[in-house]
């Protein structure tokens, strides 16, 4: 299945039988797929007038207590930040998929990871975070999209899935679970369902009393702290005590690094990969532990953006080992060869090469 279609189908099977959207490359196939699929399952499909409206339709839809989601790409996600902030403030669950393209501005439509900051640091105004899941294959796009619904409901917070254009456009084999089974969730007794036999439910993010507002922020903060304890997900590839270099990369970029690691192995350079699956919460401790291993000489962060995740890795490593960066942007996907020479450079094995940026 094509990544975009797989994400659409995954959301449907996770129980989101409604979809509000606005077209933007490179994720429009989700809309096209669901425009056909939603009527088959008796769901709601609606193309809104803008991403601004779509995200707010999601706000209304989430208020019913039903699972809902939307997909977009970078410039569209920027327009959605208003509603995302409001939903975080009002503690509404929903899933937003960002098939990232190159920026800033209109940028380009090719694969990029340059919305890292926006995704993991909240994105809109106010003190909030989103759990952010980053698949590196189509199968994982399916699994993580489904998981995102669970996490969103569990914490009553919008959740985000970030893929790059490759995830959206690529086709790989996927398996859908026969039946989607997930751990039990608390009832949605906060939803707006009509004030029958109970006091009215008011779904809002306005807290005029500063004490109440701070309390709300503390409630949110505690949720994010709990996510940091319970929701960190990552994958190791080729990690061994012999590793001299640790690569940190996520999404499809991590797969390119895998190929690079395989080829470096045949040159006698031992490198391992730690791939964060959750970008927030970030696998800080795991990165620290890997980087602290005796043989590791350097950590290399590889991104399709300009040293965004690099800062989080640097923070995780707390100066234990030098942290280097290699990245390409604007839709230029680094090749395994480029990653290989970046690894060699970080290990000082490539003479005459310019050392990448290193923070003192």
């Amino acid at each position: 299945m094509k990544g975009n279609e797989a994400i659409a189908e995954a959301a449907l099977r996770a129980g989101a039988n409604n979809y509000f959207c606005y077209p933007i490359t490179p994720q429009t196939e989700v809309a096209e797929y669901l425009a056909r699929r939603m009527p088959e399952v008796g769901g709601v499909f609606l193309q809104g007038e803008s991403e601004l409206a779509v995200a707010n339709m999601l706000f209304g839809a989430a208020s019913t207590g039903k699972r809902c989601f939307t997909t977009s790409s970078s410039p569209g996600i920027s327009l959605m930040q208003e509603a995302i902030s409001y939903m975080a403030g009002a503690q509404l669950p929903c899933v937003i998929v960002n098939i990232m393209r190159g920026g800033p501005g209109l940028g380009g439509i090719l694969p990029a990871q340059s919305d890292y900051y926006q995704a993991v640091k909240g994105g809109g105004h106010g003190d909030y975070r989103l759990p952010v899941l980053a698949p590196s294959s189509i199968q994982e796009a399916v699994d993580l999209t489904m998981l995102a619904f669970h996490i969103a409901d569990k914490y009553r917070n919008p959740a985000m899935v970030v893929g790059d254009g490759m995830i959206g456009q690529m086709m790989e084999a996927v398996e859908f679970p026969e039946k989607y089974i997930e751990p039990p969730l608390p009832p949605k007794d906060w939803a707006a369902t009509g004030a029958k036999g109970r006091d009215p439910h008011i779904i809002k993010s306005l807290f005029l009393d500063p004490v109440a507002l701070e309390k709300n922020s503390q409630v949110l903060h505690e949720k994010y702290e709990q996510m940091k304890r319970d929701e960190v997900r990552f994958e190791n590839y080729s990690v061994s005590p012999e590793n001299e270099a640790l690569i940190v990369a996520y999404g499809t970029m991590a797969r390119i690094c895998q190929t690079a690691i395989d080829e470096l192995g045949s040159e006698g350079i031992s490198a391992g990969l730690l791939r964060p699956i959750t970008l927030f919460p970030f696998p800080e401790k795991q990165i620290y532990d890997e980087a602290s291993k005796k043989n590791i000489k350097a950590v290399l962060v590889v991104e399709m953006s300009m040293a965004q995740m690099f800062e989080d890795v640097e923070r995780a490593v707390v100066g234990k080992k030098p942290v280097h960066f290699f990245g390409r942007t604007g839709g230029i996907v680094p090749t395994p060869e480029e990653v290989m020479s970046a690894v060699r450079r970080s290990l000082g094995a490539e003479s005459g090469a310019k050392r990448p940026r290193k923070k003192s």
Partner: protein
Amino acid sequence: MVMDRSVRQQTSSLSFVKNIVTIVGGFGSGKSEVSVNLSRYLATTCDQPVSIADLDIVNPYFRSREAAERLQEFGVRCIMPEGANRHSELPIILPEIRGAIEASATGFGKLILDVGGDDLGARVLSSLADAFREGSYDLLLVLNANRPFTADVAGCIRMITEIEGASKLRFTGIVSNTHLMDETTGTIVLGGLELAREVGRSAGLPVVFLSAERSVLDEIEVDALDLPVLPLDRILLKPWERPGS
């Protein structure tokens, strides 16, 4: 709160003020600081109950609602929204304000109205104009010569005309409150008074008192001014200016 003797003597002549004192002026003239200090002064010197109401609907950010708790300590009743709405940016004009105006107009109790800046802020008065009674109120223009639109006589006259137009009320006097925040000196205060007197002559309005920060007043021979003086203490402190913060 102890006032030094000379100032107390001077300010005692402020007892001329009418039951309702409406304080207006340009943005940044120091209206709110004058309003809260005047209400504190009246509460500590006169026998009547003193109330203050905030009518600043233009800029609800730094205004006398902030000072409510301190004023209540001095025995000043603050008419303001209760609960969470106190922190709202809504232009809430409480029904009690109209009631308080009518009560003070006909009888008992001093009422200070702190109105928003310029004619824009003063417009709110016209929605209450029918509650005011001729002769029952003072409408005082707080004049700071260091503000862009009130730096000369022509500018001040224009502001007087605009505010009177917007509020549907007539001025009864001028308060000379020229300051430059922490940079204020005695010379600046006296320069401002000069302008206030000129404006008063042109507009046919008396300068009813001079107000300035207490520390600055020490630089001036207040006795020689032949004018009541209201010393100001900074009651509307910004969060970082509050003691113990």
